[in-house]
């Protein structure tokens, strides 16, 4: 029962290939491994994702960890790095984690679109490299992404967004400059999630040998 529920969950996350690979491993291990596809770090050497994850770990250790429980170091790192069931009710500056606004970054090689939504997912403001004034192929550059992020952060701060969860989708050149731009203009990232969809592959069969 639990296994099937997990499988559907994995499918929702678009990681069903990974799920199949890890069918033999235990449930807990599997959940952690699913979250462990840290594509942000693989592709980018000087990743601010790493830094913010570290910051997040420190923040959480201040907020969430009760002082009298001694967790083993390894376990603690894993739990603070990846979301657990308790993450949703965690308080950050007095706000529940699942009520924090979300910033969605959609980065392709053509354009970078950034949207702020509230905790439920209703949009508050949207900005993209096109609306900032870049045209055609220049929309996909990292500078355009950063400009879009800065102008969106202004709008967001007007609406009272200071702490936010960040969801990144796609592997455009603007995915990291957008996060950097948001942080530069005063928005604190509580968590960074990679929401990239599972890519499709199109391999060809081997041609049959002619005799």
């Amino acid at each position, binding site marked *: 029962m639990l296994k099937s529920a997990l499988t559907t969950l994995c499918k929702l996350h678009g990681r069903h290939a990974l799920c199949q690979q890890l069918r033999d491993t235990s449930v807990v291990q599997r959940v952690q491994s699913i979250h462990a596809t840290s594509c942000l770090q693989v592709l980018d050497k000087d990743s601010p994702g790493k830094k913010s994850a570290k910051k997040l770990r420190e923040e959480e250790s201040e907020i969430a960890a009760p002082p009298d429980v001694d967790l083993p170091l390894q376990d603690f790192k894993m739990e603070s790095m990846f979301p657990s069931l308790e993450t949703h009710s965690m308080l950050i500056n007095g706000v529940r984690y699942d009520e924090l606004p979300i910033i969605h970054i959609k980065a*392709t090689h053509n*354009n970078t679109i950034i949207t702020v939504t509230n905790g439920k997912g209703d949009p508050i403001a949207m900005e993209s490299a096109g609306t900032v004034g870049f045209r055609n192929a220049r929309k996909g550059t990292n500078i355009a992404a950063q400009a879009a992020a800065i102008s969106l952060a202004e709008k967001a701060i007007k609406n009272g967004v200071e702490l936010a969860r960040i969801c990144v989708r796609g592997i455009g050149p603007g995915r990291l400059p957008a996060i950097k731009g948001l942080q530069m203009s005063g928005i604190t990232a509580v968590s960074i999630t990679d929401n990239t969809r599972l890519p499709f592959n199109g391999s060809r069969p081997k041609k049959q040998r002619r005799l």
Partner: protein
Amino acid sequence: MTLVLKNLQTCVKLNMQQIGKDTNIIRRLMEIDKVDVSVLFVSDYYITKLNESFRKAEGPTDVLAFPVLEIAEPGSLPSASLNEEDNLGLGDIFLGTAYIQRQCESHGDDFNTVVMATITHGFHHLIGYDHETERQQQLMVKIEGSILESFNKLTGYQCKPLTVVGH
């Protein structure tokens, strides 16, 4: 509307102008010339990295398509565009150029023909087609075949759809 076409590798010499022309013909045939797509020619190293980090599969591959939209019914594009400045973006296609050339050499195919067939295959993935089951694969090959047939008539290539079941 924009087609981002980039050659990010130096291993194989490519005629980007010709590829751009042919890609635009395919986009017009598939009726996706009003939306944004990008086609990127990358090296073996880069596509291996992508394959490992996003699909947990080892080694290089010929094409990886990263769709942005989530299309339930294959072939149906959402009609509403975002606003005046932004077009609808479909996503990115990465082509492992050196891998394709090695395949061509071992099969004795023409490189440019295979590249165009691969790009068409990637575009079909972006608009929602898949080939995980036998039925999906038959549908995909049928649609791809009809597009490539009219493309062949226009340009004189001899493209055939890629055929494989599963991932």
